[in-house]
């Protein structure tokens, strides 16, 4: 068993953990953590699987992964901003795919545009 086999198996396990987290998590931030785990697993595979050149990893996948790391932090930051906005609006950080979002206000006993949201709009406009 070589080091590459170890890292491929580790990447597979991390990807599986990410999939499990993505499927079971209700909290959006947990889903984001799980997605980031899956990303790391893919990055690991991208570096481990290609043939090494002179004992070092292939530079092309290295550059791809470097790009991927920056894209991952950008999209995570954007997703977190979306999550904070959603949390402010609906009062919790879960996605309910089975529930019509327009109904959520009635279910949780508050309207979709609660007093907080109104306040934000008021102070947000110039």
């Amino acid at each position, binding site marked *: 068993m070589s080091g590459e086999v170890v890292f491929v198996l580790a990447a597979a396990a991390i990807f599986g953990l990410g999939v499990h987290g993505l499927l079971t998590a209700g909290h959006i931030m947990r889903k984001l953590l799980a997605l980031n*785990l899956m990303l790391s697993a893919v990055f690991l595979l991208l570096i481990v699987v290609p043939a090494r050149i002179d004992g070092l990893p292939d530079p*092309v996948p*290295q550059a791809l992964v470097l*790009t991927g790391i920056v894209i991952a932090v950008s999209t995570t*930051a954007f997703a977190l901003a979306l999550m*904070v906005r959603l949390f402010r609006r609906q009062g919790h*950080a879960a996605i309910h795919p089975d529930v019509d979002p327009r109904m959520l206000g009635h279910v949780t006993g508050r309207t979709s545009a609660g007093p907080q949201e109104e306040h934000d709009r008021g102070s947000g406009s110039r």
Partner: protein
Amino acid sequence: MNAQIVVDIALGLILVGLAAQVALGRHLFRSIVFYVAFGLAMAVIWARLGAADLALADAAIGAGLTGALMMVAFRRLVGIDPEQAQAQMTRHSHVAVAVAALTAGLVATVGLAALTMARAPESAGMQVLARLEETGLGNPVTGVLLVFRGFDTLIEMAVLLTAFVGSRVMTQRSRLNVTTISGFELPLVRTLVAVILPLAVLIAMHLLWIGADQPGGAFQAGAVLAGSGVLLLLTGTLLPAPRSNAMARLALVAGVAALSLLVLVPLSQGRPPLAFLGKGSLLFAEAAMMVSVAVSLTLLFAGAPALKAGRQ
């Protein structure tokens, strides 16, 4: 069984163990902390694999900044509704376990099959190394990023800018509070900042300067600077400003603008876009990218369009 494989197995087990803590941990904040540890373990594995550029980037961005962004977002949720922010909301499902196991098996099968396959002798990496001498660069990763696949990097900077603009649209202007470390007035914290900050700037400039020939470059340098920005925000030395200004906007678009110049200048000389212009042009583009990466990530952490000087 030699020592190398023992180290590899230990590293793999640590990484999987940390990932399990992130994915299965009960408390969200604990998961975020473990994610930071996971990023650091990932950086160690990159170093073990010989991918020093990735080790630097993952230590600064994957572990440091992603963790900081998650923590500040969590802090904002707690500020709105502490109970709901930490709500468990995890559904236990046997189907999810089965699907996850199946996916892991699939990834392992594909990965192991790819390992046993004969690799093509003329890979893209070989061609990069063969042609690297023409550019005079010593670091093949920088060569790929800026010479051979420059368009990827241009679009990457555009994604960073778009993500920043999108986050600005989503963040309400009335919420400009970054929590500072309580007790930052303590002499110890000020001394710590006074020691760490010049070192961080020095490391960033070093990474930028050597990036052409050795591991390092714009992203790693920008991430180190963004880490310093986060530190300054946390200690209240810099504060979020409510209105954007020309400097902040210039810094945000610098990377896209510099790479666009690298595309357009050769075109005006009748050469193909992104034709290699020499090492000076690369350093110029990398410096601009470093500024954009640093400012975008710091402002994303601050959740503000610009920064202003805070308490001295």
